[in-house]
């Protein structure tokens, strides 16, 4: 007894550099807490979170910032004519690319329409992040529900749901985008504001429809292996109602894969919006990162700043989101340590 005590004492580090609370009592930690602790020690993750906090703050505060700086995403029709601000070739008569820095428009104004670039960038980031968050969250709900249902119900329901998942996976994504975008375009061809809103909502719905399948598969697989475990069988045996088994026993075990999936789904949705809009299949009228890049694509030689600011924003945001996603996966799954 005394010998083992002595060995224990020898193994514990000298007091002094150890906080008192830790040696006092062993505090139980949930797997989520452990993962969050790992995340806090990950330098990449901390940097990414810092970047994202700034970006999200800019996005959320976009209306406030633009009103403080007195810049506008869209010129009020009638208040100032766009023609007054652009020359005969459509280039702005103030600020870059030809006239140096203009304090009223920090990033210059756009050719032809003469809108403020900074305001459009802020709203673009705001709208793109909104798309990413809404799509990822909705797909999370749909994917989890279908995956749980398929995994937990043995038999015909599982078979039908699995077939539906495979079916959606086989649908050629881009060809459906091509099919659906003109439908929305034609329906609102007479109405610019309507088209802007409709294409924005249409894009979100389209992305949701095509992003839940991987999660549904993942959840189904997890549930199939979990439902045979002792704690689920025990819960069923003592007569715990099905809803409680699903939400209190199964779901907590799925937190890690769900968090990991979500952290990857957000940047994926943001990147897909950029892709579709670049091809002319996504939004029109509502500024998003994709639309900003798409509009500026032809100005690479005459107005580089106009092109490179949205491209830079896309790179920074997707890089930060994706690297954070990688760190989250490493934190939640100790097996994939780099």
């Amino acid at each position, binding site marked *: 007894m005394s010998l083992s005590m002595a060995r224990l004492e020898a193994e514990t580090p000298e007091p002094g550099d150890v906080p008192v609370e830790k040696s006092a009592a062993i505090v139980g930690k949930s797997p989520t807490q452990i993962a969050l602790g790992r995340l806090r020690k990950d330098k990449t993750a901390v940097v990414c979170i810092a970047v994202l906090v700034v970006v999200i703050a800019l996005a959320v505060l976009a209306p406030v910032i633009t009103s403080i700086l007195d810049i506008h995403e869209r010129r009020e029709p009638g208040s100032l004519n766009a023609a007054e601000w652009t020359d005969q070739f459509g280039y702005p008569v103030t600020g870059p690319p030809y006239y140096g820095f203009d304090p009223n428009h920090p990033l210059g104004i756009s050719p032809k329409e003469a809108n403020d670039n900074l305001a459009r960038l802020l709203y673009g980031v705001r709208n793109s992040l909104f798309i990413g968050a809404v799509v990822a969250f909705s797909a999370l709900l749909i994917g989890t529900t279908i995956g749980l249902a398929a995994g937990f119900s043995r038999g015909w329901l599982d078979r039908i749901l699995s*077939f539906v998942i495979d079916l959606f996976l*086989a649908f*050629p994504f881009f060809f459906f985008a*091509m099919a659906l975008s003109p*439908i929305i375009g034609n329906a609102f061809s007479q109405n610019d504001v309507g088209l802007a809103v409709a294409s924005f909502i249409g894009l979100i719905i389209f992305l949701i429809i095509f992003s839940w399948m991987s999660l549904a598969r993942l959840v189904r697989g997890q549930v199939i292996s979990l439902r045979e475990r002792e704690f689920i069988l025990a819960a069923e045996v003592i007569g715990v109602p099905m809803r409680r088994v699903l939400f209190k026993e199964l779901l907590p075990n799925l937190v890690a894969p769900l968090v990991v999936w979500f952290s990857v789904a957000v940047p994926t949705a943001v990147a897909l919006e950029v*892709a579709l809009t670049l091809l002319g299949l996504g939004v029109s009228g509502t500024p998003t990162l994709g639309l900003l890049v798409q509009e500026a694509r032809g100005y*690479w030689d005459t107005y580089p700043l106009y092109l490179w600011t949205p491209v830079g924003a896309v790179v920074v945001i997707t890089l930060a989101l*994706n690297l954070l996603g*990688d760190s989250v996966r490493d934190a939640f799954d100790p097996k994939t340590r780099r």
Partner: protein
Amino acid sequence: MFGYIVRRLMTAFLVVVLVSMVTFTLFFKGPSDPASALCEETGGRCTAAELNSIREQMGLNDGLVVNYSRFVKGLFVDREMYYQGEQMCEAPCFGISYGSRQPVTPQFVEKWPATVSLAVGAVLLYVIIGMTLGSLAARFRGSFFDRAVVGVATVITAVPYYVLALVAWIVLVLQLSIFPETGYHPFTDSPVLWASGLLLPWVVLAFAYAPANMRYMRGYMVESLGEDYIRTARAKGMSQQGVVFKHGLRAAIVPMTTIVGLEFAVLLAGTVFTEFLFEIDGIGWWSINSLGNPIDFPVLNITGTAAAVLIVLGNLIVDLLYAVLDPRVRLA
């Protein structure tokens, strides 16, 4: 095994049929209205009666089910189609393009080689790069080389491919003119032009796909190098090279075939964005260009169906290949 293949083929067939039905319905009920476009071409004297007669001639008044069954029949039997006069549409008939006014099947056959060239070149390039770097990183795990390769790969995969391709095109072709103008020239015309026109798309696709493949390869290789039989091989005095390449690499290649196979199927189905950006006249660009007014549904129909078939078949072939390569896998 045989029963498994039959069952998988049946499911695959069902999926393709459903995809085709949904696409057809979407367009038939939706935006593609070739009749009114034709009607307006008559010189702005389009009347309701005239529109109706054109619709009647094209068979558009007959409803969805009749039209779809005509389409299915046309896949197997030559079919007379009306588009500004009668046209013969030969056996696998996907309709007559509203743009070029020719049957789309021969056009598809004509344009597919560009897409295939693009896909094959890119896959070869990135598989070689990705697998080499991945296995080397696993072999020298934890070294500076390993960390550098993994770090660079992580950053590249985190940036969307579309942005990478756009930046590469603007900087390398337009600004610095390092790479020759991109485009497709048939290999039989001039192999040099063929290769030079596809060089940058290959490099960009490889640059975008190699890092992910490198990371998968590294992961599988690290796993296989940790197996007991590797220790056995080392213990019996096998050379380091032999252990890594004969035992480690072979085991890691098996799961890689799944990933590469599926990526290849997707690439063959048309790399829409790459072809669009680099102006390669393949089926991806063809489909994007078919989105005029009216939307060229026969073009989208054949490219979309081809994509669905390729993806479904790719899945099946990969699963079968897996069973051949890995004797532990039993298909039932």
